[in-house]
């Protein structure tokens, strides 16, 4: 346990070494949220009633929730794994008495805590500047289920990212390409980080529900906004199912990858 606390502390300190990188990452997140906020604010300008099941306060709350949920679910240092495998640096970790997955989970936790701290400041600042009409969830059960869904989402993202990171075991030159395709493109769009998935027609939305992506961002937000209990139970069950499946798959692919790993470059 002590070694993971040290990893946590060192990882946190490392974030402050590359201050500008971190600040730029936060700025980029805020710009994306601003686009989302102003677009939907414009859509609801002069409009009464709901659109895609959202009224103005709920959709603007969606924008604000994105700030914190992206920090909880998507903030990660594990993107470095692909480079380590491609460059042979993985060899250094294989000889150490540290569980590789626990190592990266610890590093991810430090990144998430730092991002959450900053996102709380950003939410407060944006709230003061923009003064939106925000929906506040007061139901304790909804809040508890919301937190549970965030934990599932964060875990799912870790597994998805790790699986993507293992591509260099077989194709070292595709390290960044695989991350770009899966994490930057597919996850960004299908998780609800870019737009609420309700925008899709019902058939498409129902198909998407059977993939792991909506459980990263969209489902936690829907739970917070007061989705009906049937949707919540179904989502948590499917999310948990995917958590188990992806965890097992991640371990299986890891073992297969180690068998072909050559440590090229070391």
């Amino acid at each position, binding site marked *: 346990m002590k070694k993971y606390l040290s990893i946590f502390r060192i990882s946190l300190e490392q974030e402050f070494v590359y201050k500008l990188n971190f600040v730029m990452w936060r700025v980029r997140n805020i*710009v994306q949220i*601003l686009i989302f906020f102003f677009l939907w604010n*414009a859509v609801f300008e002069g*409009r009464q009633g709901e659109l895609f099941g959202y009224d103005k306060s709920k959709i603007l709350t969606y924008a604000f929730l994105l700030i914190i949920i992206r920090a909880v679910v998507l903030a990660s240092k594990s993107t470095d794994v692909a480079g380590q495998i491609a460059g042979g640096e993985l060899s250094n970790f294989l000889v150490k008495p540290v569980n590789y997955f626990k190592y990266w989970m610890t590093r991810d936790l430090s990144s998430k805590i730092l991002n959450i701290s900053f996102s709380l400041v950003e939410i407060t600042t944006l709230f003061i500047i923009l003064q939106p009409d925000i929906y506040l969830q007061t139901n304790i059960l909804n809040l508890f289920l919301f937190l549970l869904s965030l934990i599932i989402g964060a875990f799912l993202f870790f597994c998805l990212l790790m699986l993507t990171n293992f591509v260099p075991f077989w194709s070292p030159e595709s390290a960044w*390409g695989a991350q770009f*395709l899966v994490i930057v493109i597919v996850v960004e*769009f299908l998780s609800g980080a*870019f737009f609420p998935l309700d925008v*899709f027609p019902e058939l498409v939305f129902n198909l998407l529900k059977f993939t792991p992506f909506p459980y990263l961002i969209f489902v936690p937000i829907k739970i917070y906004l007061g989705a009906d209990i049937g949707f919540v139970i179904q989502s948590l069950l499917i999310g948990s199912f995917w958590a188990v499946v992806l965890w097992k798959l991640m371990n299986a692919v890891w073992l297969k990858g180690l068998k072909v790993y050559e440590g090229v470059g070391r």
Partner: protein
Amino acid sequence: MKKIFKRYTKIYLLMARYAFVSWLSKRSTLAIFLIGKLIRYSFYFIFLYFLVMKSDGIMGYSPNQIIFFTLTFLLIDVLSQFLFRNVYTFRQLVIKGDLDLILVKPVNPLFRILFGGPDLIDFITIPPIIFIVGYYGLLLEPTFIHFLYYIILLINGLIISGAFHIFVLGFGVITTEVDHMVMIFRDVSSMARFPVDIYKEPIKSLLTFVVPIGIMATLPAKALYGMVGFFGTLSALVFGISMFYLSIKFWNFSLKKYTSASS
């Protein structure tokens, strides 16, 4: 003048060929990035299509107009990335001192750095984007003069984008901070995916006059709708050319501050 143009065209085609060959030697990576870009554009337009059709337009603009704003932004963005892709590799040149090797060659260094590595992926995606822009543009039934203003302001948008990239290069020589500035520019300019009218003041004014992405991306589409006249087009053109002139001046200034390192 003709001789210089011919010479630089030859140099550009040579650099483009080397850049394309470099991509073609990594076909699997090329395929992944190309598929990724196509998926991104597809997802994006599917979302936009469903949004504007259900909401029946935004802020007084019809669904087709909103889609055309986004298409225009996309066209300028893709053309900028295609032309100025080499800016992303500039930081390595400065910190390694390899910039010296470019400065001593009998080719304008700014030309070499700015245009030196056109992106094959963008090259492939440009024709279909132009086709879709043309298709949606025709749906809006512009007059010839509006179409002319649109083309002029589109070119002006590229000039402004070029000026931004040159400013970034200048800052890169002085501070070595290129990557962050370029990504900030890309992120802020992505706010022009939608007409800048959707943003409240002072963001709207900031995006129009300070970081002039409104002039870069929103104004050309407005010109096609007949919302920008002769003087508006002329003012935007003067602004764009002035900005480009200042960026060249800044680049020349930054070169005087260059201290070659570890070359």
